[in-house]
């Protein structure tokens, strides 16, 4: 992400050099820099800084980076113990892994449901399209938390689903739906689905109908045309949608905490626990840094793959 941002700035710089005569309002161009420095770069540096400190009972609860050694000497103290803990204690690794598995499976499920929904919306008439999109977005006018609580009240032992099943006579005692990874995944899919649908819809909507007609005309059936023309041309939308779903669900805290109960331990919950229960800010920060690094690593890997494919 950092790299992407940097690239964007470079692009803007280049353009600026090219259009020096045009002189776009420079304050406008400067605004993204200021914004990113204030709200992205400084906080990130702070997090990295805290991750390199030692937990200490004080306010704030960690050792300062620069400490006086004697009256005349000051030293920079870097403590890597937090990172060693992360790599040696399997608890953190398994939390990270379970987060990745949860986010990954939610993303894949979202992709299949979202793609078919986006495709259906795209095939509808223009007027119906607006209504359908409104229906997809409408639940998001209500608060995210309320929606998660709604799922809880739907699924708990006195919840609507259990009551219904008991009334029908399918079950005699209420089933315990909550407190497992599957239901966390379900609620995550529910919450993040629109973020998958919208970019895919935008990509599908851009595909001109004449391309599909040309494919049919050249002897490809409906299904083959979908596979050879529609799918490859919607890849940018799929990538955007997957990123939009995967990134927030990787760090998701609310859903696993409320729905998953004690059975699930995601990286988001771990960070929260370290911060507020253990008051170990440095460890919490180091988890955050590790997560960010692993994510950047993934992004670089996919980028490398793209470059390799291009060279081929």
């Amino acid at each position: 992400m950092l790299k992407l941002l940097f690239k964007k700035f470079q692009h803007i710089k280049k353009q600026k050099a090219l259009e020096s005569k045009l002189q776009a309002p420079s304050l406008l161009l400067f605004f993204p820099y200021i914004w990113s420095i204030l709200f992205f770069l400084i906080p990130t540096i702070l997090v990295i800084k805290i991750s390199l400190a030692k937990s200490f009972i004080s306010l704030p609860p960690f050792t300062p980076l620069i400490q006086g050694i004697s009256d005349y000497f000051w030293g920079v103290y870097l403590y890597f113990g937090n990172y060693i803990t992360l790599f040696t204690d399997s608890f953190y690794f398994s939390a990270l892994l379970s987060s990745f598995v949860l986010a990954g499976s939610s993303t894949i499920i979202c992709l299949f449901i979202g793609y078919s929904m986006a495709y259906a919306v795209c095939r509808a008439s223009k007027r119906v399209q607006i209504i359908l999109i409104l229906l997809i977005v409408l639940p998001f006018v209500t608060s995210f938390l309320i929606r998660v609580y709604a799922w809880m009240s739907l699924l708990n032992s006195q919840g609507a689903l259990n009551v219904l099943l008991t009334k029908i006579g399918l079950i005699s005692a209420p089933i315990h739906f909550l407190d497992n990874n599957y239901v966390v995944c379900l609620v995550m899919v529910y919450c993040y689905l629109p973020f998958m649908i919208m970019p895919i819809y935008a990509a599908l909507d851009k595909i001109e109908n004449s391309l599909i007609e040309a494919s049919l005309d050249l002897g490809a059936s409906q299904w083959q045309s979908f596979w050879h023309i529609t799918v490859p041309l919607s890849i940018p939308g799929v990538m955007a949608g997957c990123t939009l779903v995967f990134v927030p669900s990787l760090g998701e805290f609310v859903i696993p905490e409320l729905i998953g109960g004690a059975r699930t331990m995601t990286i988001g919950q771990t960070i929260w626990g370290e911060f507020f229960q253990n008051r170990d800010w440095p460890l919490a920060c180091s988890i955050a840094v590790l997560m960010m690094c692993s994510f950047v690593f993934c992004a670089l890997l996919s980028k490398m793959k793209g470059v390799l494919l291009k060279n081929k």
Partner: protein
Amino acid sequence: MEPWQDPNAEPYIQIESISKKYGSVEAVRNVSLSIYKGELFSLLGGSGCGKSSLLRVLAGFETPTSGRVLVDGVDITDKPPYERPVNMMFQSYALFPHMTVYKNIAFGLKQESLPKSVIYERVMESLELIQMTQFANRKPQQLSGGQRQRVALARSIVKRPKLLLLDEPLAALDKRLREQTQFELVNIQERVGITFILVTHDQEEAMTMSSRMAIMEDGRIRQVGAPHDVYEFPNSRFVAEFIGSMNIFDGVVVEEAQDHVIVDSPEAGCSILTTHVGAIPIGANVSVAIRPEKVMMSKTPPAEGRNCTKGIVREIAYLGDISIYYVELSSGKHIQSSLPNLLRLSERNVKWDDEVYLFWRAENGVLLTV
């Protein structure tokens, strides 16, 4: 003898009373056409005349409300587009943006699951035909408009269809390139021997390229014929005014013989003698149409008194190769007369506001009853 003049010739494409309704709107009304093998047939008309709807029916993207289509004796009306021996070149070219030129052209052949070597051979062959072998690995967005147009053409003929449909194939090109491409397209058509049906709104394009053309209006076919036949002998006032420019005089038939009629036209300020075969009752209201290039002009009266009127030159439009004189008759009607610019404008004796005589030969007037 051209195939359409030969009563024994078997039409290759038969369009039998095709109608297409969109809701209550009738886009194509009972159109029947017979097209012969190897023809370059144009459907010419303004926007909304139904020519594109007819083309889409032939391609299989629309099902006709009634009627049927036969290609080489086989009824294809109910076949989906991918099962028809028909290919189409789209107005927007519809090249697949994620595929190279090679893959775009190979796409249709791959659907037939031909062996790779055969596909390679045929793609290269068609790339040679459009002289774009060196562009095989380019993506469509790296090509110019003219190159894209040629790739689209290659892609649509590589499957060797029995019928190729072209939807405004040259509309996206600029004028100079369009004129070049017209001849190129005709050459390619002659080399591959595929029957072409071309849709266009550009009459020049239709005139230069087609073996025959059909003039469409409001979902109907108004006239079918070779370009020179349609130009010289329009069958209605609509066609006469649609193709080229035309001087039209309204009048009444006063004399009718086997080979000619005489029309009295107060609008023209004279009686008009026109060669015409066929019976028209005396007293019928008709019009006589004369092309501007067939109207001659002089300052002295011509020897023959018939088909001659006089007026005042109101406007001279200088177009480089020809000049068009707008002459106002005493009835108030404006007549166009176009003359090749053999002399420079300043050397000519006919000037603005001169009184001139306009005359034409009897066989150049076309009698129109509708």
